[in-house]
């Protein structure tokens, strides 16, 4: 992957995420965690190499195919990217509205989820009136409301205290148990070490999958291309 004439990042990496798996994405700041996530939610197209999402080669997708794929991916952006003029509830409702869900169901589901993440009192609050941690929870609620097949979270616990951070991680685990493939990018080692999930470690020119339950192993470029897959490229 390369931005303009800049240096190449995410060079020669290759890995496969099995459907229903849970991975931490770890690596130094600047290692390319966010770029890797962008490749996975179609926020970027690879300058070379193969990215395979839900069994489809991204390079062969037409722009009109993007919406249906993006709707299967929930993203928690590092900078939240909440829509400033919409209430917390309307921000969370967005994926459901885009998917054409009935308005009555939208209201019910969104307020339930927002209550669950502790924002029952702030349903109608605008993002600007919420604290960083509250905004982050709105962003997470928006990412998970439509039960995506793949959840990508970029530093989702960066702005919340440990208690809420753990609570959010449990939310991700709940979703994972329901079948969602989860990737959580973080550099919070303490958080990573509390869980036994596998880790995608972005290092200089490779990605290694570290399994706390077993031994560290290089990711196989020939893994089964089911579920969300991303294959390395220069």
């Amino acid at each position, binding site marked *: 992957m390369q931005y303009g004439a800049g240096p190449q990042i995410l060079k020669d990496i290759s890995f496969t995420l099995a459907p229903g798996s849970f991975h931490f994405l770890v690596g130094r700041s600047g290692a390319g965690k966010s770029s890797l996530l962008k490749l996975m939610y*179609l*926020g970027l197209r690879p300058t070379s190499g193969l990215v395979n999402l839900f069994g489809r080669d991204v390079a062969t997708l037409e722009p009109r195919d993007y919406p249906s794929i*993006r*709707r299967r991916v929930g993203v928690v952006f590092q900078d939240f990217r909440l*829509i400033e003029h*919409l209430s917390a509830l309307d921000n969370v409702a967005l994926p459901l509205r885009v*998917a054409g869900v009935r308005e009555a169901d939208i209201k019910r589901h969104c307020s339930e989820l927002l209550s669950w993440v502790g924002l029952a009192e702030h349903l109608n609050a605008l993002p600007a009136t919420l604290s960083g941690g509250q905004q982050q929870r709105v962003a997470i609620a928006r990412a998970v409301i439509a039960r995506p097949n793949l959840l990508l979270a970029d530093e989702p616990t960066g702005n919340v205290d440990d208690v809420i951070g753990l609570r959010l991680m449990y939310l991700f685990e709940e979703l994972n148990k329901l079948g969602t493939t989860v990737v959580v990018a973080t550099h919070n080692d303490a958080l990573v070490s509390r869980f036994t999930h596998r880790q995608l470690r972005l290092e200089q020119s490779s990605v290694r999958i570290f399994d706390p339950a077993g031994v560290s192993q290089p990711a196989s470029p020939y893994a089964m291309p089911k579920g969300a897959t991303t294959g390395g490229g220069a």
Partner: protein
Amino acid sequence: MLGLRSDLPLDRDAAAKFLPWIIGFMVYLAALAVGTAMVVDRLSANWQSGLTGNLTVEVPFTDDIGVAERSALLDQVIDLLSATPGVAGTTLLDDREIARLLEPWLGAEATELDIPLPAMIAVNLREDAVLDQAQLQRDLNAIQPGARVDDHAAWIADALSFLRGLKLLATLLTGLVLAATAITIVFVTRTGLSIHRSVIEIVHLIGAPDAYIAQQFQAQSLRLGIIGGIVGTLLAAATLLGAEHLLHITGGMAPGGDDLAAPGLSLDLQLLPWQWGVLGLLPFATALIAMVTARWTVLRSLARFI
């Protein structure tokens, strides 16, 4: 389509705030132009039928003619006209009526001037009349040399070509105004797209198809188009009624007035009910143009987004 909920705060954009005003102004102009075109269309049709329905026969007399001789000659002319196939009736204009016709040129005392005035006979024709005007002219000359049949053809043709020009101009103006409206919508929509680029990007990443985003712009354009359009059309209707009323009270050209020198050439500026209906549709047609333009602009622009 008129969804009140929008993910994009389009109504807060400065450009969008002016949109109903711009559309109102445009529709006002378009409605005036359409109204004018329709009035002119009706006038043309009226005048056209005036051309085929009426003749004026002018019989000049020399100074020295006696009253009895003059009236005998006129009787002869009227008999000839009445016997002509296609003629429904004749009216000999009396001095007062002739004076009225001459008033604009010779002043109120025309009949008191020492000028021999010709006799004027208004001839009404049957609707389906096919008149041999040349033959009639020859027959008239046999009775009184210098008698003249005037079917107003020359000046009605001039008037009609003037009306045609006016109608063309009004139609052209309507087209230009609607085109200007569409261009305004393109401009406002593009501005909206760039102001809200970041929000559109988020909505895109959440999986919204371009049509979902276009829907918000087109709903706004439709709504503002209808509001501006109705205001513009109402103002135009008031202007048209006002103009007609003004012509009414300034006299001279009273609606439906039958000017005997050019019978049938009424200056009736009233619109028929169906023509008011056409004007009533104008705001909705404009709003529809606005909506389609907004949708087209968004889809075309978003094709260049990721």
